[in-house]
């Protein structure tokens, strides 16, 4: 345990005779379960290269964690089995371009667990979401590789790479770039606006609720991600506060701006169904470690994530802003936790005893 200056043996004192039965690995397993449909859909949609990228990323995240534990002379297996490193790798893989080269996944996975997690002290100690730190690091370091979007080419369809071809693509790069690359809606609109063409006079890539469009490996299907999120809500792994606030934070400014000037601002539905909005709202912003403790704090945090996402997408240099927005709000979490505390029984919000 990283915070163990003082040790308390549970058996020597009361209150240790009953437990609700949860555990860290159970929580992580449930989150992975909720991620599985969107992931499998991504595999189907983008074929074998995506599968290979996914396992490379997950394995390198696990390897990074094990390597750090080895340096600290701690037993790696119990920590790896808690599932947090695998989940970090998984989330990162879902946010990568589906046919990204192997080294992108490998560097990202290592960076996530080594730099963004273990260097801060391991599980529970990191200030920033490790998957998002890695994604942003990759985006800044390798902007070209990180924006190679491909058009959906479902497994089994004509021209889709088989297992070995998939491996070759991941190891050697995409064979014929022009044939398969495509643009995302956010990227397209950013480019068009920068060229001075307004959105009413172009035909942007179609939106898809189901997810059949160009985009990151596991981010395109708003439907499946939201369904996974609802499962997490139902399992009480997450509460509605952060996802609701984040989606609201994106939708409200988008609605207003689009209403005012549809030529310059994308609609709310375009924002909600594009990029990592759904994945961010249900799976990334809701990360326990880096989000506030209280319900009210979580609402503020979620709203902040949403608003910043919209601001970065609309006015920033990158077409997509969820990772940056979540990281910025992660930095705000300690401040929110300091300012927003639950009211103690028998006291007012300032901590003074109530008056009789």
């Amino acid at each position, binding site marked *: 345990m990283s915070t163990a200056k003082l040790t308390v043996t549970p058996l020597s004192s*009361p209150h240790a005779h009953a437990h609700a039965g*949860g555990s860290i690995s159970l929580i992580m397993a449930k989150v992975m379960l909720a991620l599985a449909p969107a992931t499998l859909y991504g595999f189907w949609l983008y074929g074998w290269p995506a599968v290979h990228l996914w396992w490379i990323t997950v394995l390198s995240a696990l390897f990074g964690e094990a390597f750090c534990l080895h340096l600290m002379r701690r037993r790696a297996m119990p920590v790896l089995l*808690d599932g947090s490193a695998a989940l970090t790798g998984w989330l990162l893989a879902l946010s990568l371009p589906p046919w990204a080269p192997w080294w992108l996944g490998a560097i990202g996975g290592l960076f996530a667990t080594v730099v963004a997690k273990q260097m801060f002290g391991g*599980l529970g100690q990191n200030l920033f979401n490790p998957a998002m730190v890695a994604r942003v690091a990759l985006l800044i370091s390798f902007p070209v590789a990180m924006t190679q979007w491909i058009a959906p080419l479902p497994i089994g369809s004509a021209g889709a790479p088989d297992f070995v071809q998939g491996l070759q693509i991941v190891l050697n790069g995409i064979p014929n770039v022009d044939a398969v690359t495509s643009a995302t809606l956010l990227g397209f609109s950013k480019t068009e606006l920068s060229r001075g063409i307004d959105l009413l006079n172009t035909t942007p890539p179609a939106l898809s609720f189901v997810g059949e469009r160009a985009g990151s490996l596991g981010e395109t299907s708003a439907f499946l991600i939201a369904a996974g999120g609802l499962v997490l809500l139902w399992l009480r792994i997450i509460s509605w506060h952060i996802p609701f606030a984040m989606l609201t934070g994106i939708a409200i400014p988008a609605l207003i701006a689009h209403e005012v000037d549809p030529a310059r601002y994308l609609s709310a539905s375009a924002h909600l169904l594009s990029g990592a909005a759904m994945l961010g709202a249900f799976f990334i912003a809701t990360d326990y470690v880096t989000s506030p403790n209280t319900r009210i704090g979580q609402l503020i945090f979620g709203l902040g994530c949403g608003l910043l996402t919209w601001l970065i997408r609309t006015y920033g240099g990158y077409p997509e802003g969820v990772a940056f927005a979540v990281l910025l709000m992660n930095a705000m979490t300690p401040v929110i936790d300091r300012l927003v505390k639950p009211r103690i*029984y028998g006291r007012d919000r300032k901590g003074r005893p109530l008056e009789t």
Partner: protein
Amino acid sequence: MGLMEKFLALIEATHWGVHPHDHKRPAADAPLRCLPLPERLFVPLQQHIGAAARPIVLAGQKVKKGQLIAEAQGATSAAIHAPTSGTVAAIRDVTAPHPSGLPVAAIIIEADGEDAWIETEPVDPFTLSAQEITQRIAAAGVVGLGGATFPSALKLGLALKAKIHTLILNGGECEPYLSCDDRLMRDAAPEIVTGIRLMMRATGARRALVGIEDNKPEAIAAMREAARPWHEIGVRPVPSRYPMGSEKHLFSTLTGQEVPADGRTTDLGVLVHNVGTAYAVYEALGKGRPLVERIVTVNGGAIAFPGNIRVPVGALVEEVLAFARLKAAPARLVMGGPMMGSLLPHARVPVVKGTSGVLALTAAETAAHEAGPCIRCSSCVRACPVGLLPLEMSARIAAGALSAAVDLGLKDCIACGCCAYVCPSHIPLVQYFNHAKGELAAQARAQLRNEAAKRLASLRAERLEREAKEKAEAAARRKAERMAQKAAEAAAAVGKAAESETTA
């Protein structure tokens, strides 16, 4: 502000507490049994908050059941009576029913098997004044049977002074596994109601509310039936949610008010007592019988016949377990409920007035996990019935920053254990808080000691200074006296000379 406050409360959706699996049945439904009288009873002198009682019997002395054998000593102490008739075998240390396994002084009574009560003259308790009722309750050694074991007479006396208007009877029994109050309410509702009426008389309360968790429909029905003739006594089902049995939480659930952090329910005109205590009050006044036995829930996976047993104070846990039969070797023995009860070092410890349950838990029931790192899931924040931040507090305590934990509200913690119960990382949160509270108390004591030592030192310095001054003064005085004497002698000599001159 009012509207904002309502909005915040709505978002926080103040769902305090937890819903543990209750494990109360089938033990709760099994008929009450009586423990066969053990050969020896080990009656500890410390069965209440406050100073241990002072024994007033000697080894070899014969006693009757209900005879006073140890007097209350100090304000928050309670009298102790012989739980059966027989001979005082010895007064010596036995293992206390406490995880420490430390010794506690006890009066050991060799039972003669007759179980003969002392003679009592019956009085109609409803002819007694409030003070007389309270005195008799004190004489009967009644303490709060909900677990805190605070002397009941003292509590009633304070409530009378505070002019309370409502008496709340705690029939919540929110601890998993326990059903002793449930059983008592089902079996002895009329007696409990009589006890309640006596307590109302003793405190001047105009109405009484009996709060019972809605997972005890039989008890609610029995108490409703018994309370039917008395309009001033209401039976109120409350939601089953741990820790509903906490005085402040039951109070808030029944009245919708909150007890200020620095106050008590009596400041709001309400006194809270356990239903078992009401029954003990009835026994004390209606029958003249002091508190020498109680109902104990015997439960847990290792027990063959779980249920509720009437046990004399001083019977060993070992005998209670033998009577209820063990079907497996228990991995853990607990006195009280699993949430707030304490681990027993072994089974040769006596049942005391505050023993609500004896649990023999199997390894599967108690599966102890190694604590993992906090993942800040904030389950503990949501579970805390007081509105604290257990994860933040424990992190501060682990880092040795006790005062930071106090700033976060450590002193408001009621040690209910909800946080540790829900923690997926199995961090013993409540143990951290208990540890920190103990540490703070030790620091406060050390500070008092320091101050006392400083005061003594400064007094000593003052005294030395004073003595030195007195010495100096005395010396000066003596010197002055000597000088005066010399002067007088000289004067006398001069006078003499003059005299002789004149006479010459």
